């Protein structure tokens, strides 16, 4: 059979030679036959006629020969394609419109598929990633400190469980820009994450160059080493191929580069979306970190065959034995019910599932609208071509062949649209992958892959079937001879046909209105989020990471040194023209956070089940003013020293909670004393609640300590200015450098960037859905215009007659517009009904907005009506300009 197929393929390509040979053979055949007939006594003409009759037609013989020897289907297909390209070329306007519409529909779908595939469908970029679990307590309000574990707890868990191949983790409090790299006399900031030394073994990451961390690197006192990310290696070290083994001057320490990570591993993309992590350093578990409390996140790799349920049971059993610190037996058992493994994938992208499904549905609707539009275009075209089809049918083309040809035409259009759409999707995906500041996981790994290509083919074929169906069916079921007679104007066939097109328009408007309602609801939610009182003023303020050295032999000396540095720093900065206020905190809202203990009013027994303490900020005087956070009471003073009375500022939520536990005059916390096991903490002020973890969530408890009485972990210098903060960047940096020559060129970050970062996923989804809705609206407008315009053309004669009988221009216009609006209103009503029914799907994505939000529905209805009026106006105007004489003479 193989041999036959080869012969057929050969014959397919050697067509002209084989045809010529057959013709010679047939000529010889005729000659033989004529000769024989003449011998039998026939006249030459009679002999020839007889011979031709016997051979049964030369053309039929040729066709049969071709059918037997070659690939007849392919022949037909090529013929069809040639014909299709010729007709499409003749109808260039139609072709361009169709391909453009399809490209938009398919492009949007492929791009969104790539996003969904990367975030949701594809496994995480680690080998056997289904074995990886994230181990953490259920969400609490005390931030990272309640989502992490102590090093002792890590040991107990790692040793006490059997479900895991190994357990690893990383230091959750590595702050951004924690590295100062001195290179070529310049100081540059970079971000490193400290990880438990077995981190890469557990994840299954292999180095691109050199080696990754080994247990030895994690011993206390081990020579300092660093692993570079691929991006940082390229950017900062010009992809130096001999970087491994070189030493870097990092934080005034000589650190050896031991390896470079592969481009496929990006810590930020998986564990800290929207941030860049330049390097990985080993975390020494057994030095002072033992006393730092909860600092490590857990990541485990389950043994093959171990179920999540089993791992959960085991974790539940081990949790009570884990201690905050083995030296403090009272800290044992604090993790009870707080050690729960979940698939790492769920932790990374699980909460985006709903958003992604909505996004996917939105592009699905876009494709449907595009198909309806195309269907409409093709229908109009097939009407214009119906006489051609009828003629061909009359000349012997089979109905199947004509329908097949129409479907092939749909496929050709769809394929062209898919190619253009793929280009569009590629651009969109490239753009998305380079939105470094959008806090969505894995976004920077986005690319068009094999799955996306397969998806493109699939939707292109499905789309072709969808929009090719209507015109195809019309030919398949209609009477071709009727078509030949149907001249259009007002005949029964024409009317039925128009009704069908109206149905298409109504569908289109309905789909567009569903999209618009979703987009409108998301937009309103987004605006509501922007309106949230964050507890601080994000505009006209910026933060910079300031480096200082407060090392001193005693705590008091250290505090004195630090206070002097900070005081000087703030004075210098406030002296810069345009600066209104400046202050320092170790952590910023919407950045990192931690909690310590839970100071309660003196004499109050802690309520049962109270585990989550307030988030702690160690600040200087003036910080809260610089942030724009209002305080009732007084701010810290520089003379709130280590030996004066301990003071704190708490936020309203915490003050309210504390007031509920005891009896305070006027329920006012200001002036009250909280128990800290020593002389007591004097509450000197109550601050506004600040959104510390997210812009949308509830605010938790917060407590501010003065840096003169508690130890900060760093210095974020916050500057409030009357001018745009970016203008101050240089003068601030030079002021800091005057004080400390080691101050790196740290990034000057407007506070708004923290807010934008926190809002970025919502903004991302809102913008995507809104763009798709706009696209849907545009397509619907084109659809309405197409149908109304076509109707007017068909009714030219009728309108002409009516005008000849006295109808005014205004009346004709009103009638056409009225028809348009009728279609639009039916579509809007239908769309609103579907939206109301589908409200549940989107409800969980909304913020302070009802899924039945009346304003949105009304606005969408008005927008669609306006679009319908505009789309209908042009044909209406044309209709009113019809010259009755010309219209009646035509046709």
């Amino acid at each position, binding site marked *: 059979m193989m*041999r*036959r197929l080869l*012969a*057929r393929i050969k*014959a397919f390509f050697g067509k002209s030679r084989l045809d010529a*040979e*057959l013709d*010679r*053979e*047939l000529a*010889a*055949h005729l*000659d*033989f*036959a004529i*000769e*024989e007939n003449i011998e039998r006594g026939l006249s030459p003409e009679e002999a020839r006629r007889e011979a031709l009759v*016997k*051979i*049964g*037609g*030369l053309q*039929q*013989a040729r066709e*049969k*020969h071709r*059918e*037997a*020897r070659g690939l007849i289907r392919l022949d037909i297909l090529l013929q069809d394609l040639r014909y299709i390209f010729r007709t499409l070329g003749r109808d260039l306007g139609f072709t361009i419109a169709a391909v453009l519409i399809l490209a938009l529909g398919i492009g949007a779908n492929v791009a969104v598929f790539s996003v969904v595939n990367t975030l949701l469908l594809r496994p995480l970029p680690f080998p056997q990633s289904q074995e990886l679990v994230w181990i953490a307590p259920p969400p609490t309000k005390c931030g990272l400190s309640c989502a992490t574990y102590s090093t002792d707890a890590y040991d107990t868990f790692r040793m006490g469980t059997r479900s895991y191949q190994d357990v690893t983790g990383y230091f959750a409090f590595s702050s951004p820009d924690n590295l100062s790299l001195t290179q070529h006399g310049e100081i540059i900031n970079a971000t490193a994450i400290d990880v438990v030394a077995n981190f890469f073994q557990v994840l299954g990451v292999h180095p691109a160059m050199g080696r990754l961390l080994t247990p030895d690197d994690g011993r206390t006192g081990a020579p300092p080493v660093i692993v570079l990310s691929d991006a940082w290696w390229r950017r900062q070290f010009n992809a130096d191929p001999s970087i491994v083994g070189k030493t870097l001057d990092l934080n005034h320490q000589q650190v050896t580069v031991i390896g470079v990570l592969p481009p496929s591993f990006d810590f930020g993309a998986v564990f800290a979306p929207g941030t860049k992590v330049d390097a990985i350093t080993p975390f020494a578990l057994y030095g002072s970190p033992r006393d730092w409390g909860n600092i490590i996140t857990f990541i485990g790799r389950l043994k093959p065959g171990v179920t999540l349920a089993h791992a959960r049971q085991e974790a539940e059993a081990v949790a009570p034995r884990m201690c905050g610190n083995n030296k403090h037996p009272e800290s044992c058992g604090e993790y009870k019910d707080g050690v729960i493994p979940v698939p790492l994938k769920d932790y990374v992208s699980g909460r985006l599932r709903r958003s992604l499904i909505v996004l996917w549905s939105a592009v699905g609707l876009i494709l449907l609208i595009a198909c309806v539009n195309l269907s409409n275009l093709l229908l109009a075209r097939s009407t214009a071509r119906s006489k051609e089809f009828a003629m061909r049918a009359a000349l012997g083309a089979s109905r199947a062949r004509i329908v097949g040809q129409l479907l092939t035409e749909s496929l050709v259009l769809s394929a062209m649209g898919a190619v253009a759409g793929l280009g569009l999707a590629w651009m969109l995906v490239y753009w998305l992958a380079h939105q470094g500041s959008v806090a969505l996981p894995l976004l920077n790994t986005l690319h068009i892959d094999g799955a996306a290509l397969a998806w493109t083919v699939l939707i292109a074929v499905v789309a072709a079937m969808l929009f090719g169906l209507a015109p195809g069916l019309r030919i398949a079921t209609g009477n071709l001879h009727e078509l030949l007679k149907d001249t259009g104007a007002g005949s029964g066939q024409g009317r039925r046909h128009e009704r069908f097109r109206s149905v298409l328009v109504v569908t289109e408007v309905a789909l567009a209105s569903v999209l618009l309602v979703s987009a409108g609801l998301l937009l309103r939610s987004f605006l509501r989020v922007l309106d949230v009182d964050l507890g601080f003023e994000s505009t006209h303020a910026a933060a910079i990471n300031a480096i200082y050295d407060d090392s001193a032999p005693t705590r008091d000396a250290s505090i004195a040194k630090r206070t002097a540095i900070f005081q000087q720093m703030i004075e210098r900065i406030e002296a810069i023209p345009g600066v209104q206020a400046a202050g320092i905190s170790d952590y910023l809202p919407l950045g990192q956070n931690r909690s310590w203990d839970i100071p309660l009013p003196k004499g109050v027994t802690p309520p049962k089940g109270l585990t989550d303490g307030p988030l702690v900020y160690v600040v200087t005087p003036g910080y809260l003013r610089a942030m724009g956070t209002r305080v009732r009471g007084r701010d810290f003073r520089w003379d709130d020293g280590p030996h004066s009375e301990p003071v704190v500022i708490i936020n309203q939520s915490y003050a309210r909670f504390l007031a509920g536990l005891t009896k305070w005059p006027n329920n006012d916390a200001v002036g009250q004393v909280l128990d800290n096991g020593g002389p007591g903490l004097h509450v000197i002020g109550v601050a506004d609640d600040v959104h510390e973890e997210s812009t949308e969530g509830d605010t938790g408890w917060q407590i501010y300590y003065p840096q003169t009485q508690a130890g900060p972990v760093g210095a974020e210098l916050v500057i409030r200015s009357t001018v745009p903060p970016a203008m101050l960047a240089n003068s601030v940096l030079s002021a800091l450098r005057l004080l400390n020559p080691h101050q790196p060129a740290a990034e000057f970050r407007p506070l708004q960037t923290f807010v934008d970062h926190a809002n970025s996923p919502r903004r991302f989804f809102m913008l995507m859905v809104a763009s798709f809705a706009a696209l849907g609206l545009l397509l619907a407008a084109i659809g309405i215009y197409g149908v109304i315009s076509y109707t007017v053309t068909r009714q030219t004669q009728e309108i002409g007659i009516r005008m000849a009988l006295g109808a005014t221009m205004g009346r004709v216009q009103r009638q056409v517009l009225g028809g348009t609006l009728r279609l639009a209103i039916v579509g809007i009503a239908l769309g609103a009904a579907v939206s109301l029914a589908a409200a549940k799907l989107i409800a969980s994505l909304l913020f302070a907005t009802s899924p039945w939000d009346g304003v949105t529905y009304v606005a969408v209805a008005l927008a669609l009506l306006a679009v319908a009026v505009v789309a209908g106006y042009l044909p209406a105007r044309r209709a009113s300009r019809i010259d009755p004489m010309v219209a009646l003479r035509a046709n």
Partner: protein
Amino acid sequence: MSPSKLDLLQGTLDLMVMKTLSAMGPMHGYGIARRIEQVSGNEVLLNQGTIYASLVRLEQRGWIDSSWGVSGNNRKAKFYAITGAGRQQFEEDTLYWRRLTGVMDRVLDLNDEAGALPGAEGETV
């Protein structure tokens, strides 16, 4: 053409062509067509043109060969000859045809005599 002539069943023409070539040696298309007409006693409805589709099919399968030559009356014509593989195939096909016609005969006779037998069963033999 008279309606009483037999329409050729699918595949029977190929078998007739092979039989002709195996019995008569190399022949050209016209010769084969005339020979089949003569042997069948002009009972077969044969469009002579269709013989060429059959010939190209057999040639692609490697059962016959072709080459241009000169005929007895000095005309150039394409001559076809059966190959070794063709002869083998011809024997197989002949056996198959004999068995099939034998079965058909028996079944049709049976149906004639014992009309009780359901027709459907006869067809599935």
